[in-house]
């Protein structure tokens, strides 16, 4: 690392955990960001300079995200960070980027109720994924929900939103269970037994990280069948499906803006380049795609602003659009969140997510929607398929 990298390149901090409980998904985000950086640099960089990533590993520990963000924005003299998966880590980094007037690109779905001029949000807000998922589940499976989640801020808030929607639809939440972030198969055993006893129509999981693989596997081994009583999630993705195995994943449902097997020219190109760089596409997820398009948004902003200054970047990022693998996305100038596609897919016997429903146009992000209304047609897209 050279001391005067600022003059010849755009240094950016990369804060994705390569170790710890959320390593699978954050490694996927890291890959997405690195692929985009390669593409940009191979094409001559942005505004004449390459982007040079400073990659740190916070090891899934929220406090380390904060200290590393301080290091990046302080002594390492970057003003841009791509990073964070869990809300608890974002909440640690947020005051740091605000104090240094830096920019955090956050490529992860989350529970909403936040806006900072120093954060560009790239993942789905509840109105873009929870609401469509709940509608789909109640249309197809019934309205008795069983909630299982990891014990931290995102699952609890996400369940609050889901509970409100389920109640509006005349359904009920028959149980709400939380496990530790590092939960193993034995921690899920009593929950799975309880599920078999109370016979809900659907299980809604906000378990994240390695717990996801443990949960789905334990469910399968205890005789749980995704085709009969699916586990629905907003986070379970291609990388986790690959880790848990096809048999454990079959029949389960995820709502996300992007799935790997979307058949568009743009996505094919993206996957081909990912394959060339990493030798596989198993680790491509919606969070990876978000990290990928956010780096491109940043590079485009550098080109437009001709400078890397936070205030100038922010002003051109607002309203910025990009042809992402999921489709055309746009940064909402009102709230720094993104207009995203909404898709629901179900895992088949080959471990592939097969689309079940798809919004016909991107959905405007509404991060402060406390109670998404089932009959709120103003914001409901037309569903195809």
């Amino acid at each position, binding site marked *: 690392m050279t001391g005067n990298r600022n003059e010849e390149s755009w240094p950016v901090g990369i804060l994705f955990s390569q170790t710890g409980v959320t390593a699978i998904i954050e490694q996927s985000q890291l890959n997405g960001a690195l692929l985009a950086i390669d593409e940009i640099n191979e094409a001559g960089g942005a505004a004449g300079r390459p982007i040079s990533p400073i990659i740190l590993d916070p090891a899934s520990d929220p406090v380390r995200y904060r200290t590393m963000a301080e290091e990046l924005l302080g002594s390492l003299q970057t003003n841009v960070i791509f990073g964070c998966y869990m809300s608890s880590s974002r909440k640690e980094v947020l005051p740091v980027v605000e104090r240094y007037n830096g920019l955090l690109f956050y490529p992860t779905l989350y529970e909403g*109720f*936040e*806006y*900072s*001029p120093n954060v560009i949000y790239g993942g789905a807000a509840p109105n873009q994924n929870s609401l469509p998922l709940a509608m789909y589940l109640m249309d197809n499976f019934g309205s008795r929900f069983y909630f299982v989640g990891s014990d931290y801020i995102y699952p609890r808030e996400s369940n609050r939103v889901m509970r409100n929607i389920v109640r509006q639809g005349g359904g009920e939440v028959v149980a709400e269970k939380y496990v530790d972030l590092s939960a193993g198969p034995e921690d899920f055993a009593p929950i799975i037994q309880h599920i078999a006893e109370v016979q809900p129509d659907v299980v809604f999981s906000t378990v994240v990280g390695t717990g996801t693989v443990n949960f789905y596997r334990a469910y399968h081994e205890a005789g749980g069948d995704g085709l009969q009583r699916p586990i629905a999630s907003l986070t379970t993705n291609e990388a986790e499906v690959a880790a848990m195995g096809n048999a454990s994943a079959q029949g389960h449902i995820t709502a996300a803006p992007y799935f790997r097997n979307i058949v568009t020219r743009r996505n094919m190109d993206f996957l081909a380049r990912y394959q060339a760089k990493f030798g596989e596409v198993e680790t491509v997820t919606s969070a990876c795609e978000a990290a990928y398009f956010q780096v491109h948004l940043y590079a485009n902003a550098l080109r437009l602003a001709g400078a890397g200054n936070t205030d100038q970047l922010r002003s051109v990022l607002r309203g910025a659009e990009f042809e992402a693998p999921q489709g055309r996305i746009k940064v909402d100038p*009102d*709230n720094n969140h993104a207009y995203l596609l909404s898709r629901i897919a179900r895992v088949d016997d080959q471990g592939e997510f097969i689309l079940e429903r798809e919004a016909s146009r991107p959905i405007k992000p*509404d*991060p*402060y*929607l*406390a*109670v998404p209304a089932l009959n709120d047609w103003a914001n409901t897209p037309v569903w195809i398929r």
Partner: protein
Amino acid sequence: MTGDEGIIERLRGLNALVLHPRDGDAEELLLQLNRIGCRAQAVWPPPKVDADPVDIAFILVQEKPLESILEYLERQSTRPSLIGLAGYESPSVLNHLISLQVDSVLTKPIRPSGVLTSMVTARRIWQECRHKDRLISKLRSKVENSQKLNDAKLILMRLHEIGEQDAYRAMRQQAMESRQTVTEVAEAIIQSHSLLTSLVSHRDFDADPGPD
């Protein structure tokens, strides 16, 4: 469902008004109110005529009270929830916050985070005050009514030399027949009694001093 949850759910339906000069602070506040999803507008100087009723008002608070804001507040039949926008924490500003009876405060410069919290706090305090005001006036009239009932009962008991229960029964009977409330009957008894007493008092009648 708790009342607290209702406050958050209903925030979006609120009509918000920002009475603050159009500067960066007002702009930041308005943007955040729009993000939250409130119908919000900023007006400066404060309007002389009111348009829609306002549920929550953000008002500039300085060292000395602004006549135009005081006039605005006095005109409102239902006082909106008030959030003071204060630039300093000097004693005169603080005094002004007290005298305006704001429900919550935002200190400048306005940042997006904190606006929602101050609104929720203000609504809770405002709701609680309204609830307590209503409760107090209800209790007050109840106390007054029961005082009247007692006075009227005593008058009937002395006049007709009957017991307490008979006196009450008589009043209730009268109330039903004349389609009035028992309190109205009691008031009529007290009034006519005091009239009769004053008519005869100059003749050294041993008058009942009557109620205060």
